[in-house]
């Protein structure tokens, strides 16, 4: 692909360095696809469309996330989900969903350039996030398979524990990405 169309992360100007001392590791997982999916979870055509394209039904249990092959589906509301695809897959998944939903009350919106993913890992990952996040991050309350939309340092985010228990995945808006990364790196100094 030509350099003219080179994709640039909203965090391109942030320097990610090796964590010092007991500070958690903070890294970006850039360029995933993000599709906002809306529809009625009790409508057979909607359920069938999701099943056909993603191989699973959209989760109806509040604040849960499921793996669907290469994709992940986050519960965002009783009629709203976020589908995270591998980089570059979003247009195909979106088109497949739109085709499967022909005549079905639904919407699929590509929000890929609006969001990015951060991983915070290490022993103090929860402590670092809890510096300014009101959610209970204790593994007794918040386990892999769960997700939550809440706030980090006053900015909206979607958080879920990583499957291997090493830390958390944060999905943040690109317009807050620079602020949140600078905030995280600053808050991490306390753990060095």
């Amino acid at each position, binding site marked *: 692909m030509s350099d003219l169309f080179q994709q640039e992360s909203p965090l391109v100007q942030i320097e990610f360095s090796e964590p010092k001392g007991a500070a958690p590791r903070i890294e970006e997982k850039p360029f995933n696809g993000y599709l906002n999916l809306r529809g009625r979870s009790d409508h057979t055509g909607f359920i069938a469309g999701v099943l056909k394209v993603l191989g699973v039904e959209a989760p109806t249990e509040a604040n849960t996330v499921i793996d669907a092959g290469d994709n992940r589906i986050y519960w965002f*509301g009783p009629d709203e989900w976020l589908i995270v695809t591998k980089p570059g897959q979003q247009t195909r998944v979106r088109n497949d969903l739109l085709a499967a939903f022909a005549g079905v009350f639904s919407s699929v919106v590509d929000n890929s350039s609006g969001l990015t993913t951060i991983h915070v890992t290490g022993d103090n990952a929860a402590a670092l996030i809890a510096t300014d996040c*009101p959610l209970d991050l204790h593994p007794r309350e918040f386990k892999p398979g769960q997700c939550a*939309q*809440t*706030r980090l340092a006053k900015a909206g985010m979607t958080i879920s524990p990583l499957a291997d228990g090493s830390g958390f995945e944060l999905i943040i808006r690109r317009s807050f990405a620079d602020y949140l990364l600078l905030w995280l790196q600053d808050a991490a100094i306390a753990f060095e």
Partner: protein
Amino acid sequence: MFLIECPWCGLRDETEFSCAGEAHIARPLETEKLSDEEWADYLFMRSNPKGAHREQWLHAAGCRRYFNALRDTVTYKISATYKIGETPPSEGKK
């Protein structure tokens, strides 16, 4: 920390929520037949009670759903929350 129970997400910090005024105000049908007084009453007039109050709340930083809450306007205690379309708990009926 003051917690509010979203009917979808469970107990969450109050900073995730915003209040959206009195609940259970039905929009009148055939609004074109209303007098100015009736229309103004629907738009602007609220009961503003001292004590139990049925309110709409929005889980703004969470699932972004509106729901109803039964809140005491004196103590701020929220005794129940319930989904839009559900009947309010009997305690709130006056």
